[in-house]
């Protein structure tokens, strides 16, 4: 395997224009002769499928949800960044680029990030034209707010439901193409394998989740927009059905997996209440605009009513440690600081595993109606879950797994190491380095789908020859048999433990050993524990029901099986990256004040892992990262 990032030559600000001009085009009359298979219908998948359909390609969209509108992009709350500089506060393409590279702790590819910043404004234009009801000022123009890791207000938002509104915009465009007949939608259909013919991605094998039918689909290119793997931790802010199956199975077919250890723990989530917990709920980072994070200075105050603790006895630790950015430091830093506070025994709540996020001062300064207009739905959600009123009592928050920066390795064209397999959005690794800034995931998903993939996929189709294969080709038969065999093997499981039970055990191993803080001994132990759990899963899982029917136990078991394999690579990558950077914090590498200590000489590269076959150690490939425009420096938000 050879990694060629295909970054165009020339000054960074001209690369994309030059590349677009040099990319071959498909004649309008020929576009309908090409079929593109898009897996996933979130922001990246829906926007790509709609745009490709508009161009005239034949597109198939596969989603495990009952409607494309339900993909997990819908849950993004706070907003979407763009360097429009409408507030006149000094923003620019260059500043968004700089903030993103720095926020990612210098582990992202400069050229991709610059393109993202360049195209960010077009996304807002597109969404407004679709009818996305962004928040507006009284003059009728668009409003902005601030997010972590930036000192400008560049975040566009639609109350606390920005992801929902952006996804509905993309979904409506997708529905328009479905009506026009350019896009065929396959709901309740799960991707189970990639078909590679003569080195090219030419198809997918799916399972109809209602009838259980295993099906073959032939195309000229495959797009995976299947999101991240946060649910490997069992508890995360991801939706219940988010999984690693598509990217993991593509990895086993030859796509390199990059930087799996770059996982993001979000600082502001509602704390865990018990063993029954099925997921964690995020409270948008935008709350840190007006909320102040604190813990009691004295341990004995941690069970007291917070209202009775005087100002002088409170430690606003983010404002104290990071005066320049205060409560708006990037997510990795805020999360680690919360963990430290709780580890020191100053955490609040019955478990002692939470910190306060307090709005009292903002309510006094701005009045409750203003706070309600900004965050009303988030406050309601908090009250619904905790039965506490955050207008009267500070919220209690704790970090939770939220996003994964790692993903399948892609080049500048968003193509993986398998020709014809494109990977968009959270499923790829490309833009966020070791830590993603708030309001940048929506930006990347839509940028990839609306403005990058439609060009680069065309370029791939125009510059490659395609053999006249059919879905009767041996590669299809072999992949279908493999999928069918996997389903039958799971259904023969007559052990004692359910897939969900195994998943919980896996999550605990990862959260303890590969969560917010990691070390070599813990990771080594985790790798052994995961292998043992995987072996037990093979012997002792129980999967009731049949294959030719709607069977949610079977769906869960398939996904957990893949998580059990993937988890080992995640820990292996974390063990090999013997430095701290962004969301990857190795306890062996920190400054005296507890800040992450990077090692640029040894680790300024993308770790792309090649699958070497079952039971064999994966092979590490390195893509060196060159920082020509933003100079390598220790991140400081002080």
């Amino acid at each position, binding site marked *: 395997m050879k990694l060629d990032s295909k970054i165009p030559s020339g000054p960074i600000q001209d690369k994309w224009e030059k590349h677009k001009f040099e990319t071959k085009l498909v004649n309008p009359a020929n576009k309908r002769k090409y079929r593109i298979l898009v897996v996933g219908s979130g922001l990246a998948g829906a*926007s790509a499928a709609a745009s490709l359909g*508009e161009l005239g390609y034949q597109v198939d969209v596969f989603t495990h*949800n*009952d*409607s*494309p*509108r*339900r*993909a*997990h992009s*819908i*849950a993004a709350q706070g907003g979407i960044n763009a360097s*429009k500089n409408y507030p006149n506060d000094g923003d620019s393409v260059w500043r968004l680029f700089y903030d993103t590279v720095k926020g990612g702790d210098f582990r992202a590819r400069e050229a991709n990030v610059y393109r993202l910043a360049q195209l960010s404004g077009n996304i807002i*234009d*597109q969404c*407004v*034209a*679709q*009818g996305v*009801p*962004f928040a*507006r*000022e*009284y*003059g009728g*123009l668009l409003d902005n707010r601030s997010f972590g890791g930036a000192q400008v207000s560049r975040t566009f938002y*639609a109350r606390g*439901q920005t*992801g*929902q509104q952006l996804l*509905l915009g993309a979904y*409506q465009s997708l*529905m*328009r193409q*479905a*009506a026009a007949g350019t896009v065929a939608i396959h709901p309740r259909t799960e991707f189970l394998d990639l078909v590679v013919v003569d080195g090219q991605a030419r198809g997918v094998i799916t399972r109809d989740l209602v009838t259980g039918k295993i099906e073959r689909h032939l195309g000229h290119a495959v797009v995976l927009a299947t999101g991240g793997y946060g649910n490997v931790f069992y508890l995360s802010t991801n*939706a*219940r*059905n988010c999984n690693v199956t598509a990217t993991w199975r593509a990895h086993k077919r030859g796509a390199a997996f990059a930087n799996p250890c770059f996982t993001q723990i979000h600082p502001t989530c509602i704390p865990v*209440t018990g063993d*029954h*917990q*099925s*997921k964690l709920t*995020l409270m948008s980072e935008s709350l840190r605009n007006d909320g102040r994070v604190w813990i009691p200075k004295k341990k004995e105050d941690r069970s007291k009513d917070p209202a009775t603790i005087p100002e002088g006895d409170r430690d606003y630790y983010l404002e104290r440690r990071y005066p320049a950015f205060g409560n708006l430091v990037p997510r990795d830093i805020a999360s680690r600081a919360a963990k430290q506070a709780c580890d020191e025994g100053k955490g609040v709540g019955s478990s002692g595993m939470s910190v306060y996020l307090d709005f009292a001062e903002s309510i006094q300064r701005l009045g409750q109606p203003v706070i309600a207009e900004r965050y009303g739905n988030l406050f309601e*959600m908090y009250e*619904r*879950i905790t*039965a506490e009123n955050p207008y009267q009592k500070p919220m209690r928050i704790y970090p939770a797994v939220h996003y994964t920066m790692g993903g399948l390795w892609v080049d500048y064209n968003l193509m993986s190491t398998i020709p014809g397999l494109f990977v968009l959005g959270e499923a790829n690794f490309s833009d966020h380095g070791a830590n993603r800034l708030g309001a940048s995931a929506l930006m990347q998903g839509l940028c990839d789908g609306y*403005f990058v993939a*439609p060009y680069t996929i065309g370029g791939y189709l125009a510059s490659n020859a395609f053999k006249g294969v059919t879905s009767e080709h041996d590669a299809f038969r072999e992949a279908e048999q493999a999928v069918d065999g996997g389903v039958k093997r799971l259904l023969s499981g*007559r052990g004692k433990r*359910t897939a*969900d039970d195994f998943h919980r055990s896996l999550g605990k191993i990862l959260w303890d050993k590969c969560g917010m803080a990691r070390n070599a001994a813990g990771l080594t132990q985790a790798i052994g524990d995961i292998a043992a759990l995987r072996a037990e899963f093979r012997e002792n899982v*129980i*999967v*009731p029901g049949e294959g030719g*029917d709607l069977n*949610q*136990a079977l769906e869960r078991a398939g996904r957990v099986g893949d998580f059990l394999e993937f988890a080992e690579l995640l820990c292996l990558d974390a063990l090999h990256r013997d430095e701290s950077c962004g969301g990857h914090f190795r306890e062996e590498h920190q400054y005296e004040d507890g800040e992450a200590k990077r090692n640029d000489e040894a680790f300024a590269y993308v770790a792309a892992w090649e699958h070497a076959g079952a039971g064999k150690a994966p092979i590490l490939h390195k893509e060196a990262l060159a920082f020509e425009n933003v100079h390598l420096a220790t991140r400081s938000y002080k």
Partner: protein
Amino acid sequence: MSATMNVTLRIWRQKNRHTKGRFVDYPLSDVSPEQSFLETLDVLNNQLEARGEDPVAFDSDCREGICGTCSLHISGTPHGPMKLTTTCQLHMRSFRSGATITVEPWRARAFPIVKDLIVDRSAFDRIVQSGGFVSVKTGSAPDANSLPVPKANAELAMDAAQCIGCGACVAACKNASAMLFVAAKVSHLALLPQGHAERKERVVKMIARMDQEGFGSCTNLSACEAVCPKGISVNFIARMNREYLRAGLTG
């Protein structure tokens, strides 16, 4: 920590749309009031699976009240007893210990049962396909600030746009009408200048499709608004009716 509860879940079980369904009682003990209603179903399913029995099939995904995947008629009310709350955000503290809780799928001709508590809501997608969009191609948009929108209109459009497409409005309606769902989309796009070009065509086509899918007529009883987890107002139905009339009068 509050004491745990005992409840009985009386759940509709149905293998598929061609077979007859029936209620089955499942007693559960040691239920934490802090756990969500769907987590209680998870606990039950885990017990059933461990015994080699078929788990109760139900739809759920985000579990934070926004994706619209979860449904369930709980003791006679879509999404259960809490106002402005989806089933996934309903907690066991809303029930008393010892209660028998009846759990059914959405009941509507246009939402056929797939299995147990899962129904097919693809009719909603087809209604959106008939015109619930602005016909703008990728790349052809003018600058986002080139067209100011009065804040009040933008806010009202957002009130309508937050529909999650769960179908509770249909499930609550005696006539299984989809008026609130369709009205929310028609109003959202009619309130914004971006949606004006296709305003007349949109409302006519979406209503035609709604009728074709087998949804009933509006009862004017507002049961839909009462159960809508996003609190979408029936005023939008009045707005849609005006849009429809206007399209008819001005052709």
